[in-house]
């Protein structure tokens, strides 16, 4: 079990939910995939092939440790940095790539910036940019789950910065009052763009904020898949048993920039980054799997090969997909277009035809 908030974070000692080697290997695979996607997408962005990108490197153990402890029927309310969760949920990278491009096969129809994807069939709700808004929504969905009396939980994902948001406060409070089956999964990656964790709030841990709402918070080492998995599995069991919500603070580090628009050299030192990179969650798990004999050189290179291939093929396919039909602009504001939208659509179509508007 992870330690209570009041004490300093450590690697979880007596983990009560053990992971088989097979499972660990499949987790490792998704972590490697996530990391490789990150690296590739940063370079796609530099080449101007995608417009923007939000890397998640350094947070893979937290994300995949958490995702693995949830079930497919649990609803995910993500922020924009949750690629590991989506991949664990078997969202194909091709679908992510479609979203990064905003092409005709993009599930969100080119409506959002890269990384703000949504996959209803994977119970992966739509990410939005405004920080924290998903938190109250996850609590509301959990209230709906209570009303329907089904064995599900909702899990919501957010950063250290988001703990300052209005929705964190309201969501945590409602969850406490109604004892909702909600897991609040905070990836404390030490930074909210340029603001360090200790300037975000004066509390010793983020997990202890749960005290304000009458339920418990735990700190876990987010570079350790075992600790994360255990904390989430425990929280899930408690939620299903009617024992209410849990706040989990997974302590990690954002290795890369906040996004491709950010220059982290303005606010942090390379030494600080290097220090944390020694705890790279992928190296750590690789080390463990090699030591236990679960990962051979051959498996590793096959895996790396497969990941590379999947990525390249997906990019090619997504880039080859037709562009979005401009007329889709007028869909989905409402279920049915209002007369005004019909009128604007007709005007738009005319302007397109006349070449006044050019896609």
């Amino acid at each position, binding site marked *: 079990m992870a330690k209570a908030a009041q004490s300093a974070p450590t690697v979880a000692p007596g983990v009560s939910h053990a992971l088989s080697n097979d499972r660990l290997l499949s987790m490792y695979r998704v972590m490697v995939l996530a990391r490789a996607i990150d690296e590739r997408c940063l370079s796609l962005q530099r080449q101007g092939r995608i417009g923007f990108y939000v890397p998640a490197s350094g947070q893979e153990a937290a994300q995949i440790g958490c995702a693995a402890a949830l079930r497919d029927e649990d*609803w995910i*309310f993500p922020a924009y940095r949750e690629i590991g969760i989506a991949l664990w949920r078997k969202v194909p990278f091709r679908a992510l790539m479609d979203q990064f491009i905003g092409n005709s096969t*993009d*599930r*969100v*129809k080119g*409506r*959002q910036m890269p990384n*703000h994807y*949504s*996959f*209803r069939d994977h119970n992966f*709700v*739509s990410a*939005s940019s*405004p920080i924290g*808004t998903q*938190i*109250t*929504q*996850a*609590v*509301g*969905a*959990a*209230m*709906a*789950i209570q*009303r*329907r009396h089904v064995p599900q939980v*909702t899990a919501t994902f957010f950063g250290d910065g988001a703990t300052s948001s*209005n*929705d964190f*406060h*309201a*969501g945590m*409070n*409602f969850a406490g*009052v109604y004892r909702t089956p909600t897991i609040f999964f905070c990836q404390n990656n030490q930074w909210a763009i340029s603001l360090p964790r200790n300037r975000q709030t004066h509390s010793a841990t983020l997990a202890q904020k749960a005290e304000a709402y009458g339920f418990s918070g735990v700190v876990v080492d987010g570079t350790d898949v075992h600790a994360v998995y255990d904390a989430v599995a425990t929280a899930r069991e408690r939620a299903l048993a009617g024992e209410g919500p849990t706040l989990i603070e997974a302590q990690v580090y954002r290795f890369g920039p906040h996004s491709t628009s950010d220059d982290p050299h303005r606010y942090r030192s390379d030494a600080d980054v290097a220090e944390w990179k020694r705890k790279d969650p992928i190296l750590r798990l690789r080390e463990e799997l090699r030591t236990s004999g679960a990962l051979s050189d051959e498996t590793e290179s096959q895996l790396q090969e497969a990941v590379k291939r999947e990525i390249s093929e997906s990019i090619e396919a997504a880039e080859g997909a037709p562009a979005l039909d401009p007329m889709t602009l007028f*869909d*989905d*504001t*409402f*279920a*049915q277009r*209002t*007369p*005004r939208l019909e009128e604007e659509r007709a005007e738009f179509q005319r302007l397109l035809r006349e070449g006044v508007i050019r896609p």
Partner: protein
Amino acid sequence: MSEMTLVQAVNRGLFEAMKQDPDVLVLGEDVGVDGGVFRATDGLIKEYGAERVIDTPLSETGIIGTAVGMALYGLKPVAEIQFLDFIYPAFDQIVSELAKFRFRSGGQYPCHVVIRAPYGGGIKGGVYHSQSTEAYFCHTAGLKVAIPSTPADAKGLLLTAIHDEDPVMFFEPKRIYRTATGEVPDGDYRVPFGQARTVREGEHLSIFAYGAMIPPASEAAAALAKDGISAEVIDLRTLVPLDEAAAVASVEKTGRAVVVHEAARFCGFGAELSAILAEKAFYSLKAPILRVTGYDTPFPYALENVYLPNAARIEAAARAVMQEG
């Protein structure tokens, strides 16, 4: 059919919807045990229990944020905001989330929440229990906006709102909660969105209003009639979707228009209606379009009766419009 007040009709509408569909639930501050500060939710908790009639903590962010989550999951939450003036802590959830969920998820996540809020002045509520800020919501793509002026419309539009597939802002004219009375059909009565109601037919000018401004608009029309001025009074009922066709047709007939609302004038809803008419009924217009509205100050307390448009102001504007052109 039974005779009742506007707030009773809201209450009847909620009972009907909760009876029809177990996924409908009500949440907000003081909506349960207390029955709502205006008693709009009176009796619901007795009938449907605390699982479906939820007293919430004092957080509009929480009320709307959780309602959005419930709607995403498939329920049909009807959230009450105690006064429209107190909706702003939820503004981010409304404009960034509720209004955009369907669009931004490529149609995967419809988000159907009804937000009820009493709005408007005339109850001696001062700056924070009197405002009419419907324009904020009308300007937010993805939201529908309904404002009833009669008990029958209150029930009929509310049931339509609850059965709609999109988010609906349902603003209730609290000033006439108890003074507007009338016959209301029993059962599943619905009034379609986007269809204005002709309160009174007329030939010489068109008066457009909604909500609590319908009584003074009608009163003004009656006074004008005594002088042989035949004013058409149109209740817009839903501002989004707007029955532009009815508005344009009326002005094509009359050639003159007065637009009435309680909200401050600058960038208020009346600006949109004027702009539509100035574009689409341009060649029919015989005189400038006048707006009779609240002033561009915050809402006052002691002076609310001189701040709010009244029948005399509407009448004066109508006469001015008749003298032009």
